[in-house]
Structure formats: structure tokens, C-alpha cells
């Protein structure tokens, strides 16, 4: 300890204090402050860039989500549209079928009715023709067989008897 005190040099202490305080002040003004400020600024810049990148990423994600949603909606809409269209088509087809069937039915019925009428007409015509033919035949037969007056009268009587019997 004695040696340390003996070795102590006031001049060196004085100069060291003076130069060191001067150095701290000078470096503070000309070196540390600009350096630390520049470094801080740079770090803040980097932080800001990172933050904005993060934000952009988030925005991108939300945009993507939006897109996805819109796409989904569009797809659903398309599906429902297609479904509707199919239903309409089916309905149209079934309606058309029913119509056609009904029409066909009426046509057939009409046809049937017409056929019936024709048939009746034909039958009645046939009847008249057959009656006329029969009368003709009968006339001829009668002409030939009933040349005498007596025979004619006998036959008339006979026929009349039949008719009344009926």
C-alpha cells in the first residue's frame, strides 16, 4: 500500500483526468451521438420495414381469404343456378310431356269419337243400303213369285202377321 501511494503521480492523474474528460466530451459530440443515432435510425427503419411487411402479409392474407370467400359464394351461386335450371328443365319437360299426353288423349278421343260417328253413319248407311238391297231383292223375288194377285195378298198377310208378332 505504501508503495502504491509513493508511486502515485499527481501529474499523471491530472493529465489523465483532463484528457479523459475532454475525450469523453469530444467523442460524445463528434462520434458516439452520430453513431448511436445513425444505428438507432437504421434499426428503426428495419423495424418499420419489417412491420409494414408483416402488415402487407396480413392484408394479403385477408385479401386471399376474401377471394376465397367470393369464389366460394360464386361457386354456390353457380350450383344453385344450375340446380334451378335443372329443375326448370325437368319441369318444362314434364309439363310438355303432360301436355303432349293430354293432347294425344284428346286427339285419340276425338278420333275415336269421329270413328264412332263414322261407324254409326256407315252402319246406318249400310242398313239403308242393305234395306234398299233387300227390298230390291225382295221386289225381284216377289215379282217373280207373286205374279198372281192371290199370292201377293197371301204374302202380305203373312208378313203383316210376323210384324205384329214381333
Amino acid at each position, binding site marked *: 500500500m505504501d508503495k502504491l501511494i509513493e508511486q502515485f503521480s499527481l501529474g499523471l492523474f491530472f493529465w489523465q*483526468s483532463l484528457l479523459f474528460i475532454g475525450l469523453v466530451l469530444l467523442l460524445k459530440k463528434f462520434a458516439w451521438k*452520430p453513431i448511436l443515432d*445513425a444505428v438507432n435510425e437504421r434499426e428503426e427503419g428495419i423495424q418499420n420495414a419489417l412491420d409494414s411487411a408483416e402488415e402487407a402479409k396480413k392484408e394479403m392474407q385477408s385479401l386471399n381469404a376474401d377471394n376465397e370467400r367470393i369464389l366460394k359464394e360464386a361457386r354456390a351461386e353457380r350450383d344453385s343456378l344450375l340446380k334451378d335450371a335443372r329443375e326448370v328443365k325437368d319441369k318444362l319437360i314434364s309439363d310438355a310431356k303432360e301436355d303432349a299426353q293430354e293432347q294425344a288423349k284428346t286427339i285419340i278421343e276425338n278420333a275415336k269419337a269421329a270413328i264412332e260417328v263414322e261407324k254409326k253413319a256407315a252402319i246406318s248407311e249400310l242398313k239403308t243400303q242393305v234395306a234398299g238391297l233387300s227390298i230390291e231383292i225382295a221386289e225381284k223375288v216377289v215379282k217373280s213369285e207373286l205374279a198372281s194377285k192371290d199370292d201377293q195378298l197371301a204374302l202380305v198377310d203373312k208378313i203383316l202377321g210376323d210384324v205384329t208378332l214381333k
Partner: protein
Amino acid sequence: MQRFLRHDYYYHMRREFLIQKITFILLLVSFVSFAQHHDADHGAAAVETSSETSLKEEIKEFIGHHLLDSYDFSLFSYEDEHGKDVHVGAPLPVILWDSETGLNVFSSSNFHHGETPAESKGNFYKVYHSKIYKTDAAGTIHLDDHHHATNEKPLDFSITKNVAVIFLVSLLMFFIFSRMAKSYKTSALPTGFGRLLEPIILYIRDDIAIPNIGKKKYKKYMSYLLTVFFFVWIINLLGLTPLGVNVTNNIAVTLALSLMTYFITTFSGNKDYWKHIFWMPGVPTPMKIILAPIELLGTIIKPFSLMIRLYANITAGHIVLMSIIGLMFIFKNWIGSPLSFGLAFALSLLELLVAALQAYIFTMLSALYFGSAVEEHDHH
């Protein structure tokens, strides 16, 4: 460890030792102006005593000399073929304040490396054990029983070798860091040497200042912490070069540094800090009375230990390293000398680590003390 007069013993081993040093110095130092001094009047008596001195004492004396400050920037010295001492280095200004004559300024070359008294304003001054004493024209030094000089000592503000080195390092630091600061104006990234220094600056900020002081208040202390770290580191590293400077093994330098830490701590201490010293909360009253002087003493011991730690680590490193280098010349055989060379090499690497470690510890503990002074306790 004993100290010896610095100017008296020179002979061939010293010369070999120093010639090895010269090659290193020539490589490393080209900026110091070389001034050669031939000392004609080298006494024959000194030569006779030198032959009686053992090599061990010689080395011991050299180490003792190395650890001391000197009044001129001596790089090395040797004995030429005519038996004259040749000193290579530059003289530095001596600044004395004498109570009678006031300010005295003269060149240290007037001392002739401590051999003759220098005259200024009618008074004579002589260097004895690396201190300047007032003497007569013959340079008589009066010694008391304990071999301490009793001559009057003028106030000594000389630009010694250490002061010159401190000044040069300050200039160097200012040059490097202001250039680095300028480089930020043109680009956001550091250029050149700044690329190496910026991580260190950021390390001090992020791993020393912020964790210890706190994010809110660290900015105020950054200038001091950065300056002290780089100053101590560079000075310690310079001490490992063959320049032969060793600033941080002067107690005056470490005292100045630790006093600054002490003053900053004391003046930035808030209410909580003083309350924890004088009236420790959370302990019974009798304990508070016992704790107060202990805590108060603690505030002084903290910077004291800072001072001693830096001083002792560097001094011990220099003594051990130089002793092992000295061993090379004691062994003088082909086993011992390479062995001590290897050991010295390994120790030099260790000292490189210690140089940075001590700067780190000094900065770290300073930050810790500042942190304790500004800490806000959110209790009770």
C-alpha cells in the same frame, strides 16, 4: 519487488535482449521521431559495478524500470562499440510548478536520462527513482533512514511518456470514431474499420448498458461507457506491444478512471439509491443503523476495487510476462529457452484476452453501479 536506479547497468546480455526488441520496434513503430543521444561521460565506476551485478538482478531491474513512468519517450537503449550509452527515443517537455519560481518548462533531454541535474530559473532538478526532486548544482539527493529522498519535490505536471501515450491514444480514438461517425452520413451501414467496431459498440449498448441500467436511462451513460471501454482496451493492447508503454499499471490512471465512475454514480443517484444506503428499507431499525456505515463504505470500496483490479491485473500480467521473457536469458540452453519462449507466447495470448476482459469488466461494473444509482424500486 525492488526498484533500481534506471540508468546505471548495461552490458552484453541487455544488449542482446534489446537488439531483439529493436527488430520488433522497427516493424511496429514508424511514427515516433528517433532522437539519438550519445552520452559521453559514462562513468567508469558504473561499468565496474555492472560486472558484479547478476543477470537475475539485471532482469529484475529492467522489469522494475519497465513498470515505471519516464520523462522521455525512450524506446530502447544500448551500449555502442566505444562503451557509450545510446538512447533511442524522443525527449518530452517537463512542466514543474515550484513554490518559489512558479512555472518551469524545459525539455527532458536536460536530465540526460537522469544522469545530471537540469537547471531552470536558477534552480536545479534531478530525477531520482522516477520522481523529480529539487537539488543543488551537484545533484545531491538527501536520503533518510528508509532510503527515501528528503529533498523538496516541486509539483510535477510533466508530459511524461504515459501522458504522451494517453494523448496519442485520445487522438487516435477521436480520429477513428469521428471518421466512423462521418461514414454514417453517406450510408446506413458502417464502412471500413467501422464494420469491426459497430458490433462492439452495439454489444456495449445491448449487453452492458441496457441490461444493467435499464432501457429508459441508459442513453445518458453510453458516452462514458463506450469511451472508457475503448480507451482501456486500446491502452491495454498498446501495453502488450514492444513499445514499452504501460499506462494502466499506473495507479494514478486507474484512480482517475474509477473516480469518474464514482462521481457519475454519486451524482446520478436518485432518492431510492440514497435511501438504500442510509435507511435500508425492509430490515429492523437496529439493522438499519448497522447497515448505513457499511453501505456508505461500500460506495467507496466499489470504485476502489475498480481501480485496484485494473491496476493489479495489468501490472501482474506485465511482471509475469517479462519475467518469463527474462528466463530465456537465464536458461541460455536449448531446452529452457524455447520452453520459456513458448510459455511467453502462450501468456501473451492470455494477456490479449486479459486486455479486453479488464476493459469489459471495468465497463460492466461501471454500468452496474450506474444502474444501481438510477434504479427505481417499485416496492411497498
